[in-house]
């Protein structure tokens, strides 16, 4: 990638860069060595703390069931969030002001309340009213929290996806005699969903990461297993590190998938919703701005509207 910040280095600059690189490599090694020494002192690097992870017992009885619960919560939340997002996303694009307002309030509300607060609320609500079998309460709490928040994000993505389409698409749909609802459903939404695919996949990473909040309402997901493993083999720190590695591998794969999808959609010459922006991209996408789309999903909490753009522009 051409950087805007630097010229191509000459021989002097290259020599300087090598020196800086060597010094910083030394610093990194020293820092790592110091950290490892600290953990070694407390016996965290002993073979006995790590060998349990090579036994089937730990995986079959702890890690894999934990991972399974994590994936179940994530999968349910994805399905429900998709439905929630579709309903309220279409609501925000509705032609009836009342529906639009209600949807806007609902979406904005659930986007600004922390997921954990919604989880605590849902969990306590279900527990006190006996809505579910008592062992299902933690799962229901996690799924409710994740659905409400991520559903609101999906609704917002959908709205901006439709907003990013050329106006001619709507006009063409209306001109051939489709109703506004039909235009939305059969012309705009399919294109919007293609455009939002990369952003949707990065939202999956958010969902998967946030299932770990279930730890705080005793949902037996992957992170929770560190306590059982830790007390069983007295190695809580190695257990946390292994669990972190599992999360990182899965999420990294999903992040890579998202960038692949984005590249592919882009090569086909279609617009994508930049991961960094709900609402139209803030600037025209110069080639150099491509790395902008590496910006992370947290940026999705975007709440700006581009100037001069109102909901009334879209049917």
């Amino acid at each position, binding site marked *: 990638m051409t950087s*805007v910040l630097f010229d191509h280095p000459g021989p002097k600059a290259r020599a300087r860069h090598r020196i800086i690189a060597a010094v910083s490599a030394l610093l990194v090694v020293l820092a790592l060595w110091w950290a490892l020494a600290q953990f070694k002192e407390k016996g965290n690097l002993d073979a006995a703390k790590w060998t349990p992870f090579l036994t089937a017992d730990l995986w079959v009885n702890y890690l894999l069931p934990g991972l399974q619960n994590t994936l179940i919560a994530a999968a349910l939340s994805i399905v429900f969030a998709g439905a929630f997002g579709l309903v309220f996303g279409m609501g925000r694009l509705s032609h009836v002001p009342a529906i639009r307002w209600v949807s806007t309030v609902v979406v904005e509300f659930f986007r600004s309340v922390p997921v954990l607060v919604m989880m*605590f609320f849902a969990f306590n609500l279900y527990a006190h009213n006996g809505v579910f079998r008592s062992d299902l309460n933690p799962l229901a709490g996690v799924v409710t929290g994740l659905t409400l928040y991520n559903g609101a994000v999906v609704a917002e993505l959908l709205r901006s996806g439709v907003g990013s389409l050329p106006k001619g698409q709507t006009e063409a749909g209306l001109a051939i005699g489709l109703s506004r609802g039909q235009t939305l459903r059969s012309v705009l939404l399919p294109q919007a969903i293609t455009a939002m695919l990369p952003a949707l996949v990065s939202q999956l990473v958010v969902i998967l990461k946030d299932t770990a909040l279930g730890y705080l309402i005793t949902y037996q997901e992957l992170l929770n297993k560190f306590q059982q493993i830790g007390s069983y083999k007295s190695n809580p720190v190695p257990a946390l590190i292994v*669990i972190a590695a599992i*999360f990182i591998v899965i999420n990294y794969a999903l992040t890579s998938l998202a960038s692949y999808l984005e590249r592919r959609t882009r090569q086909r010459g279609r617009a994508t919703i930049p991961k960094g*922006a709900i609402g139209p991209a803030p600037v025209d996408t110069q080639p150099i*701005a491509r790395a902008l789309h590496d910006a*992370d999903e947290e940026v999705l909490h975007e709440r700006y509207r581009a100037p001069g753009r109102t909901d009334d522009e879209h049917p």
Partner: protein
Amino acid sequence: MGELFASYNILGAFGLTILLAVSSAIGSLLIGTVVAIMRVSPIDFLNKVGAFYVNIVRNTPLTLIIVFCNIGFIVNLGMSFTNDIARNNIIWAIIGLSFYHAAFVCEALRSGVNTVPVGQAEAARSIGLTFSQSLSEVLLPQAFRGAITPLGNTLIALTKNTTVATAIGVAEISGLMKEMMEFRPDLIFVIFFLVALGFVILTLPVGILTTRLSTKLAVKR
């Protein structure tokens, strides 16, 4: 509702939430700027270190990072800054939150740099500006303006994520909410809307302010 305010220190808990948010915002801005400089620097090694940091941190659940601060650093290594356990937990929560959000601050700043077209750098060079001149007069001013919106979003996300500090025993608002809901299940909706309203009040101005600023300071191209 007055009853709730009388028996629980709701405002104090929100105060702690604000303290966490402000301190972690400063911390993550500092760390994130350093990582962002590494990420955009011409030195390949620093680049890779920065990329590694960002990829690791943003693919790890925040809850895990906070729990690790507790189990790994406080319990296992016995690292403490003060003898006051509650205060020590707060400090570690701030450290965890800062390191986590630094990855997102880095990406926000980097996306700001990436909004600057290459032509700007070429134009700066061709009119004879030196490297530092073109950086300070042409490139960075545009880069900062481009980063306002993503930085604002990171701040909003950070404010909401301070709730995770309850995992380390920090008495911020979500922990208090859990306690209130357990003791007063009859007021569960009131409690929820009270806390939700608090977060709306905390995050809404940030959103409005960054929207204003980014529109006002937008680089017209």
